């Protein structure tokens, strides 16, 4: 595994109730590159993300971060990682700014938080408890982390879900900027990116194990 690859995945498979969820996955991701994971509903994309972040242990195969298995370099792998899943991990009782402050590096100042929130279109909502906001706005608070985060490796599970046109364009520009700065992105989505060039990888659901 050449050190250039920030992430290498060697035929990962996961078994639930004696059924393999998807055909073993083999992929590699290097700096300054985005990989678009395609797959029908229920083909196991979310499970793949859980396997990549190390929350679930694969039935066979393994994940390498810069050439080392993630079990051995857990600390620096996870400090370099930003994962945004289906759920937006936003607390209803906290305000949008408090939520973002909680999820971004401690050094970020109040101005940075405010400008990140305004750039995702939440100017007036920074100090309102989030249970008053809509699901789309919750999603935007979660995605504001893309601006404040310093992680180099991004895992985005369906970032464009519940977002309007303007939100999608905004997120795509963030991803474009991140790639140009040498970051790496692995994202799953049902729609294609308009501008940025991406490699595609499709997951095939598995009917029945061996």
């Amino acid at each position, binding site marked *: 595994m050449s050190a250039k690859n920030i992430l290498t995945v060697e035929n990962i498979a996961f078994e639930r109730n004696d059924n393999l969820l998807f055909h073993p996955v083999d992929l590699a991701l290097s700096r300054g590159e985005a990989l678009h994971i395609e797959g029908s509903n229920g083909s196991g994309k979310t499970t793949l993300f*859980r396997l990549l*972040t*190390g*929350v*679930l242990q694969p039935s066979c195969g393994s994940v390498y971060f810069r050439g080392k298995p993630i079990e051995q370099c*857990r*600390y*620096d*792998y*996870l*400090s370099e*990682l*930003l*994962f945004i*899943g*289906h*759920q*937006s*991990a*936003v*607390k*209803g*009782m*906290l305000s949008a700014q*408090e939520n973002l*402050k*909680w*999820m*971004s*590096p*401690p*050094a970020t100042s109040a101005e940075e938080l405010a400008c990140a929130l305004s750039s995702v279109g939440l100017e007036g909502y920074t100090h309102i*408890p989030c249970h008053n906001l809509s699901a789309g706005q919750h999603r935007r608070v979660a995605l504001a982390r893309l601006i404040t*985060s*310093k*992680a180099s490796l991004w895992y985005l599970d369906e970032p464009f879900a519940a977002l309007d046109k303007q939100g999608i364009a905004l997120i795509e520009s963030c991803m474009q900027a991140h790639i140009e700065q040498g970051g790496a992105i692995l994202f799953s989505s049902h729609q294609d990116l308009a501008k940025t060039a991406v490699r595609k990888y499709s997951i095939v659901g598995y009917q029945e194990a061996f």
Partner: protein
Amino acid sequence: MSAVLSGGFSAYLYRDLLLAYRCRSDLARPLIFFLVVSTLVPLGVAPEPARLAALAPGIIWIMALLASLLSIESLFSSDFQDGSLEQMLIAPNLLAMPILGKVTAHWLVIGLPLALISPLIGIMFSLPAVAMVPMVLSLALGTAVLSFIGAVGAALTLPLRKGGVLLALLVMPLYMPVLIFGSATIQSAVDGLAWSGSLAILGAFLAIAMALCPLAIAAALRLSS
């Protein structure tokens, strides 16, 4: 990820206390339950002070145990629903630290108030004054142990929809030693004996629970995703 998350213990303790403070009204729920259920006993058993005083140590402890059990289920379920549990699992720091932070926050918010309010029940049960201090101390220490063991049950039954009763069944056998030594502290104080021994054993339970429970909770949380 970010230093705030890797701060672990203090970060989660602060956040959970802030969240509890934001919805202060449901903090009173376990306390009101504790008071109401304790008033059932004289109605059910007998109002004579002598008989009540004989029952008081056990009853107060059982009510505190049930109040703590009631409130433990929501420890992880709100984080599980909105996805912040997944972020906790991915944080680079040791998973035991956020768990310690959350359980301490739960104890500060539920266990300690129960202990502080228990003299009120003691007076209602005509408990002798000498037993008030050991009662508060044993309840304070005991509810901390109950929070740790209850958190293990809550983490195990997290992915299940109706985990409430199952949580009680799983955790009840593990609560019994704490109940035995907790009510024994008050009982020996009422009888005028030295009560520091059983209190020390409660402290030992707390030490064991604080060391081992986070490991079990971490393993159970990883399982729930």
